[in-house]
């Protein structure tokens, strides 16, 4: 169940398009490579710790929907569900639905906190997979990667629709193929271990396994966080949202103006009715009119377009 829940997110196409990492990584490498990479996970400097905090916040900013987050967390941590059941017993005695709803929210919040706290204890590590074995599904890959430690988020990029169509058209396999992917380990250590062990090696396992002989290509992305992947999309979404708000408020101003004008025109009409004036006023404002065109013989020449020479030859050849 855990896997399937994650799968649905793994396929999400939102993250697919603008995945960003190269520049960020380069910069970070410059800054940290000298000193920080040599530290083991337990010996963080304060500097790095605070940096990590920022990253976590960003991550949660992206997942606006608490329920989606919640489900996943419940599955990952059995402790969390214990918490829940104790609260549930209390909840039964309260019949009020609103109260229940509130409790649910609280529960979710506490789970979130718990999760955040747990994550904070360790520094997360991200690995990059430049090739995914043909037709391997996220669930299977997660299983393989989980050998080295707890995997949190996993994102695989699907192949283009175009290539997929071409493959199917040419009689190829109809399963989805993934091109590349990223995985996040809860512990940095595991990520590094995974990269060292798995990179350039076959997947192994039982001899007869379908993926036994596939060679993996894994790179540990040092100084790189999951948030860096989604940062650009989140930023764009934010910009779009604020732009939308701005535009709506502008449009509302226009609307208000329109409503005022409608009321004014009603007033003027009423006044006219009372005074028994029914002549139209002279023009107050004139608008630039849009162009009229015509191809009719009867229409004035100013509206017509000049016919090209090619057309004349067509006409000559026609009749």
């Amino acid at each position, binding site marked *: 169940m855990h896997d399937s829940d994650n799968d649905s997110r793994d396929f999400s196409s939102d993250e697919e398009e603008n995945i960003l990492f190269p520049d960020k990584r380069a910069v970070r490498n410059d800054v940290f490579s000298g000193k920080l990479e040599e530290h083991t996970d337990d010996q963080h400097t304060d500097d790095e710790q605070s940096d990590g905090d920022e990253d976590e916040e960003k991550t949660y900013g992206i997942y606006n929907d608490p329920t989606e987050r919640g489900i996943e967390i419940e599955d990952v941590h059995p402790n969390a569900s214990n918490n829940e059941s104790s609260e549930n017993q209390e909840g039964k005695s309260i019949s009020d639905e609103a109260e229940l709803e509130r409790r649910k929210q609280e529960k979710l919040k506490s789970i979130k906190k718990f999760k955040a706290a747990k994550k904070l204890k360790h520094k997360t590590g991200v690995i990059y997979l430049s090739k995914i074995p043909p037709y391997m599904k996220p669930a299977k890959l997660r299983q393989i990667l989980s050998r080295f430690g707890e995997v949190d988020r996993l994102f695989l990029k699907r192949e283009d629709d175009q290539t997929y169509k071409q493959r199917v058209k040419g009689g190829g396999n109809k399963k989805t193929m993934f091109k590349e992917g990223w995985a996040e380990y809860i512990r940095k250590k595991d990520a590094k271990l995974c990269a060292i062990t798995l990179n350039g090696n076959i997947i192994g396992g039982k001899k007869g396994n379908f993926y036994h002989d596939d060679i993996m290509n894994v790179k540990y992305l040092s100084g790189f966080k999951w948030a860096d992947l989604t940062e650009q999309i989140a930023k764009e979404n934010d910009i*779009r949202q604020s*732009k*939308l708000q701005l*535009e*709506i408020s502008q*449009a*509302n101003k*226009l*609307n208000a103006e*329109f*409503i005022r004008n*409608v009321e004014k025109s009603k007033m003027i009409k009423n006044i006219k009715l009372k005074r028994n004036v029914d002549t139209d006023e002279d023009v107050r404002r004139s*608008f*630039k*009119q*849009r*162009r*009229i*065109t*015509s*191809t*009719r*013989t*009867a229409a004035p020449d100013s509206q*017509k*377009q000049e*016919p*090209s020479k*090619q*057309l004349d*030859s*067509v*006409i*000559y*050849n*026609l*009749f």
Partner: protein
Amino acid sequence: MYNDFKSLGLSKWLVEALHSMKITQPTIVQKACIPEILKGCDCIGGAKTGSGKTIAFAAPMLSNWSADPSGMFGVVLTPTRELAMQIAEQFTALGSIMNIKVALVVGGDDIVKQALELQRRPHFIIATPGRLAHHIMHSGEDTIGGLRRVKYLVLDEADILLTNTFGKDLATCLSVLPPKEKRQNLLFTATITDQVKALKEAPRVEGKPPVFSFQVEDLDCLAIPKALKTEYLLVPEHVKEAYLYQILSSEEYNDKTVIVFVNRTVSAEILRRTLRLLDVRVTSLHSQLPQKERTNSLQRFRANAARILIATDVASRGLDIPAVQLVLNYDIPANPDTYIHRVGRTARAGRSGESLSFVSPKDVSRIKAIESRINKKMDEFTKVGDTAVIRKALTKVTVAKRESLMAMDKEGFGEKRKQQRNKGGIKRANKALETKNK
């Protein structure tokens, strides 16, 4: 004079086929044109929209073809893909008893498939000029060889085909057809343009009967069907969407079938998204959709799965959708004749229909031009008032419109076309350079 198709001189099987399609009474155009075409005259047919022009050229061609069923008998050129499909359907339906083979050669479809189809020597080719020209330029002799023996050439909606837009492609198409003396040319149009007039007055080739022209002179006065109600509504530019939504959801119109015409593909897309966000069953038809979607949405509209069709002028000509009750001109067309074609989508073949035009401050002179063209004053539309719009639609629609604009921005609507246009610009620049260098 003639009261049924048989007395017009059509073959027996064709009369039966027409009967089975519930077409028994020939219309005026058909009565006039069919005997002349059967005689072998070139023909220029002018008739208002929805008067049965398609049958007027299809029937005599099929009748003559059945006497000697040879491959590549006739070519029909139309300005839009949807119209070509509709005509192809009618040909197939009429000729199915005689095992007719009709090839549809339109853009947006598989080129290779079409070429193969052409190699099989279909009896009739229904085409749009651009794609046919492409085949002529790029395919071998075995594909297009049959075109050299074609006996009929039909230009449907000739007024628009004989403009600069299609001129180049038409010239290419004509280059492989047999010379003008050896084929029969049929022109059908609802507007008489300079070009059509020039054709009518063109000197005759020796040994050929004179051109038969029908209603060419007095066509201008009979523009729109009598049973059509024409109305207008004065609307400021920026609240048009709100009015549209309010009208479409008003009691009077909330179950009617409506076509909304706009001038630009972008506005069609905005409207479609906005109305979709507001839970209106709506579909759209414009040139920036992939052909598959174009066909689909037209089909959905025909089958009444969507009540409202938002369309640009690709849908303004020839399309026969009997159930349309209201044509709404969201934008006013520059050409008064386009207005006539647009409103011609309703009130077809003697039915009644309504048309409503949104008039923004900048469109007044256009409306005046249209009124003088159709010889009729429009009435003011009063079924939906300002208060209702303000109270029920304005805020909702404004938000929906902005949201759809954002979504379009995100998905990059229109980017592809822009790129293609740029590419064209580069090509042109290169060509200019080459000629300069020479």
